[in-house]
């Protein structure tokens, strides 16, 4: 259904155009002059030397979560690659060595050039094995092949970079909760 959008009423000064332009230029000029006198107060950052603080919830590069013994949590169920609209997750499954676990990924590649960072993989994972909370958003490489993150690369992260409140990350080797989780894991507690 068509809808009539009324034009805003303009005053004579606004209709004259020039005064409004000058008003806009005043903002520009005031920042420009401030840049000479007191640059440290400017509302800008010297990117890339200074990086913007990214929220943990921001969908950044993926990582694969680890069990207390360092093995990937991933059970190679293909839910993420099924959910992936860009079809950029390539998994090959194999038998797990741990009798409690059925399968594990032999290969887990994410083509980050194809990835659309929608987060559906992390959403789909039934075991919280894949996350996108690394805060790594600027990716650079000199060949296409190097944009393919392999299982080893995705598993290569440090619990120290994650907050203490992130208990799943802290249960991984090197984490604050690892010793305790490892002991329980060895006794058969798989949580």
């Amino acid at each position, binding site marked *: 259904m068509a809808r009539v959008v009324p034009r805003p009423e303009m005053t004579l000064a606004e209709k004259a155009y020039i005064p409004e332009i000058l008003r806009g230029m005043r903002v520009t000029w005031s920042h420009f002059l401030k840049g000479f006198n007191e640059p440290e107060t400017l509302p800008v950052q010297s990117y890339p030397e200074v990086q913007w603080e990214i929220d943990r919830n921001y969908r950044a590069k993926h990582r694969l979560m680890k069990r207390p013994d360092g093995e990937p949590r991933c*059970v*190679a*169920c*293909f*839910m993420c690659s*099924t959910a992936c609209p860009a079809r950029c997750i390539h998994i090959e*499954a*194999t*038998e797990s060595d741990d*009798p*409690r676990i*059925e*399968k594990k990924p032999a290969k887990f590649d994410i083509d980050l050039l194809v990835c659309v960072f929608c987060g559906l993989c992390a959403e789909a994972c*039934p*075991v919280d094995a894949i996350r996108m909370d690394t805060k790594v958003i600027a990716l650079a490489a000199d060949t296409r092949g190097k944009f393919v993150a392999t299982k080893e690369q995705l598993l290569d992260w440090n619990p120290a970079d994650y907050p203490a409140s992130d208990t799943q990350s802290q249960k991984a080797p090197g984490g604050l909760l690892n010793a305790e989780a490892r002991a329980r894991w060895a006794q058969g507690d798989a949580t």
Partner: protein
Amino acid sequence: MSNSYNKPVLPKADSKKVSIVVDGADVEVPEGTNLVEALKTIGIDTPHFCYHQDLPVAGNCRQCMVETDGPRGMGLAIACYTPVRPGMKVATDRSSEKVKTARKAVMEFLLANHPLDCPICDKAGECTLQDNYMSSGKHESRMREEIGKQYKGAPEHRHLDAKGQDRGGKHIDLGPTVILDQERCILCDRCTRFMRDVAGDEQLYIAARGDHAFITTFPGQPLQHDYDLNVTDICPVGALTGKHFRFQQRVWLLSKTETIAPDDSLGANITVEHHDGHVWRIMPRRHPDVNKSWISNATRLLYQTLSENRLTGGSFRGADVPLADAVERARELVHGARKVALVASGHLTLEDNAALLALAESLGSRAEVFGGSWLAVGAPDGIARSGDPVANRLGCTLLGISDNLSDLVRRAKEFDCLVVAGHDLWAADAERAKSLSVIPERIALSAWHDATAQASTLAVGIRAWAEVRGSMINVQGRIQRLQAAPTAPTPDLEPAWQVISRLGHLGWTSEVDAFRFAQGRIPALSGLNYRTIGSQGRILEGVAP
């Protein structure tokens, strides 16, 4: 438990109809069959686990409940073992709350100790338990969390019997091909019925009783049979999985191409299941008069050869050459030769052999066609193999190709060019094939780097059976269709008929041209096309031997 005599009576196209009342409406259904089949003919699916069209009825899962009228009024009965009776009243879940509740209750019991394995279960996506939960379960769990499920993967559930055989757990190696996960088994007893009544070798049985019952093999014995992988298809859940396909792909990713098995003259109906240009498995496709629901392990594992040792280009005197050059060179050789021997093949389609005949025609008296095979012919096994490894033998015979390979061996010296299409003569009988080596120019059209391709002076790659469209005539005189899965190792590879058409300047652009040529040679094919042959094939009148 089942008996081998109570095979279900299935409706046929010409079955007599009787009228019964379903959910208050008068309907006509085939006489003599059971209610699962009868309701299917009027478009009502009855959820079931243990019932299978090609197995004796066992009636143990109780999922197929409907209400029927009896001496004491309407009451619950299992649809799979209740025969249709003229005038009977039937109530399905569409009209009866009682049926709904009964089915839901069965579902609840089945899932009581069923693991939450779907994400890692190879059956997920084609699992009857998942389907039936969606159609007739959908209950909230009433299991108390603090008690939890009985976890059969736990060490205490594992026990070895006196012969050291593993009798429990989630990963039981039953034999060379199959792995059992007891936790997922719903004890429908389809696998044991298959082994007993179809394979004829009772290797599986249900041991113990009640909640403790489990599927196992006899002490110290493996599950090992030429058809044992069929149990992984009929297992409605992910309890039995084939080692060849375990963890390979999720089934929902697979696209299916309906075709027929090329390794036997019964031409078992199969689907080739592929994803990303790669064939991941072969599954049986039900045909009531050919292979029922079964295929042999050998047929099932044929897909593995599709990516092994393929001839993707050409090779001339041992050196690799591009495909187009190889075809060009073959054409020069054939046309420059004084006398050409063309060897047709019952492993190739009617279309390919028709092309060979057309090539011979175009070469006139310079060419002679030979046919037949040196492979040993066995006896039918009564399940899904006729024992004759030459799939299209009858098709070749009908095309007028005679069984005269021995003539070729005897008269080899008369020829100066040999064309062998899709026929591994050197592997079949190297001794006899050796005498063909006196022919100076030997051209092999082959999908594989096989012995014949190696023994030839020029080898030209062609598509394999799973990658071509065409038809074959099986031992029953049934013409059946092959369809092409998009899985050729390189897109340049052409089917044999197309390569042969290039050799003879036939100008054929599709397999339809080849089929038309075959129709000219086989009167029984007149009026047929790929659509009318259909997915179930057609019996050709008066051709079966």
